[in-house]
């Protein structure tokens, strides 16, 4: 079953990516031409650059926020942790389509965000967040941050609870302040969680199809076009199937490589 629907498509995809094919007539053999074309294709490059920006919002920012909050909260026995956990994890559970629909409404020119801006006297900042070339990508990125921050925080908090208290006591005996304690005890103790959080969020950033399809469809222009969206439009709208398969293969390899790199990096640190 697995072989049939995962392994076979991988092989099949690699095969298709070697042809120029519109999905209807028979294809022309182009060898690695699709890959060469993809690498030189400005649209593909832009899309991967957008992915980099999204990684910042989906992965870097949430991980940083999660770590900072964990560092602050690690000693306080906050009441109702379980309750908070339930709520901040919720975005992770919702269908991306639902999240996209909700945020599209929030970002609407007449939506709550703009209304709130107007209400506090910042009416001049009102605009169509998703429709503006300069704000569309960050706006999508913020949605990503909203989704993944909860995941990171829950992971890190759970990890921090597994750090033996003796290590904190030892650090205190050595005269470490809160900041040094964070870097000497908490951060090393969260190595595994860090690897997991980074892997999951980077994958989410590189995929990001549902959210973008629902909110902007890659627009305005190509301001929010990402590789997964290119795969979809090329394969199913504009009939560049070979090219789409090549982008898919590049994306798959990239994700695989990133996950391996992240795991290595985090594990190598003493």
């Amino acid at each position, binding site marked *: 079953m697995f072989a049939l629907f995962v392994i076979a498509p991988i092989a099949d995809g690699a095969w298709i990516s070697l042809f120029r094919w519109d999905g209807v007539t028979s294809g022309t053999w182009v060898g690695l031409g699709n890959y060469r074309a993809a690498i030189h294709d400005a649209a593909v490059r832009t899309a991967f650059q957008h992915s980099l920006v999204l990684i910042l919002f989906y992965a870097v920012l949430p991980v940083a926020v999660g770590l900072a909050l964990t560092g602050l909260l690690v000693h306080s026995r906050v009441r109702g942790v379980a309750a908070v956990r339930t709520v901040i994890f919720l975005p992770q559970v919702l*269908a991306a389509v639902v999240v996209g629909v909700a945020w599209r409404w929030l970002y609407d020119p007449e939506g709550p965000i703009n209304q709130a801006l107007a209400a506090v006297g910042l009416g001049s900042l009102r605009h169509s967040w998703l429709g503006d070339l300069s704000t569309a990508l960050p706006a999508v990125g913020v949605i990503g941050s909203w989704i993944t921050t909860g995941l990171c925080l829950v992971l890190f908090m759970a990890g921090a609870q597994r750090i033996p208290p003796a290590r904190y006591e030892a650090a205190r005996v050595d005269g470490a302040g809160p900041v040094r304690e964070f870097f000497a005890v908490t951060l090393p103790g969260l190595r595994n969680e860090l690897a997991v959080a980074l892997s999951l969020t980077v994958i989410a950033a590189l995929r990001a*199809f549902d959210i973008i399809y629902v909110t902007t469809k890659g627009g305005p222009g190509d301001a929010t076009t990402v590789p997964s969206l290119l795969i979809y439009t090329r394969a199913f709208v504009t009939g560049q199937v070979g090219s789409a398969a090549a982008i898919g293969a590049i994306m798959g390899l990239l994700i695989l490589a990133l996950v391996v790199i992240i795991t290595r990096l985090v594990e190598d640190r003493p």
Partner: protein
Amino acid sequence: MTASGVERAVTYAVLALFSVLCPGADRGDRADRDAPARGAADRGRAAPLGQPGTFRSAWDAGGFGRLMASSVLVSASVVALTTALCIPAGYAFGTMRFPGATPIFYVMLAGMVVPFESLIVPLYYTFRDAGLTDTYWALILPQTGLSISFGTFWMRAFFRSVPVELADAARVDGASSWRVLWRVLVPIGRPAILTMVVLVFMWTWNEFLLALVMISDQSHRTAPLGLSTFQSRYGVDVPSVSAAAVLVAAPVVVVYLLTQRQFLRGMLAGSIRG
């Protein structure tokens, strides 16, 4: 209040909030939108609680009865298939030694990382050639394929954590490995299995790209796909779109809230071991 009491209270609070606040928010927005046209007198017209009517009209307009039925069918099939296949597979990987076990397992793990986006093009053409697009099979089979890699990994971890003595004791009593699996191990593994079922259900329910590509025919659409179409058609009608979004999100949210303890524990444990 005990910890679990607090947790339960919050669960119900979130549920209640969802059921009241969402239509409430829509109502506020609609009032604001319509205000210039209708005059300020209408601003406060809405009832203090949500308007069930919005849900009913969205349900009818979007054909959500049908969409939900499709989603339930697909999710249930994927969950059933995954469970049926992953328990034995995880058992084999977790407790037996057979040639090639390690390489096969690594290939399986790779399946957890490869995104649908990379597979969707070949998948689509394979299914089209087989005449399976616009059928539930086009959703069930690939989704099961991807879920299997996680499920096998997850069940393997569980079977490894079970003390060997337990299975050995049963075997001494003359039980076959198959019997040991179903009579001894599966009953203890119920929490692990439940977590897997919930996760797979959630992923399947929320899956969008696969449905978008495979399904063009109205009658086989899933709920998220229906929501996306609904939004592009009724985008201006914010209350209806929000009501539709709540409808699509509701099953997953309810399942999550009801099983969240096991779910979070399972998810954390699973991801750490990965």
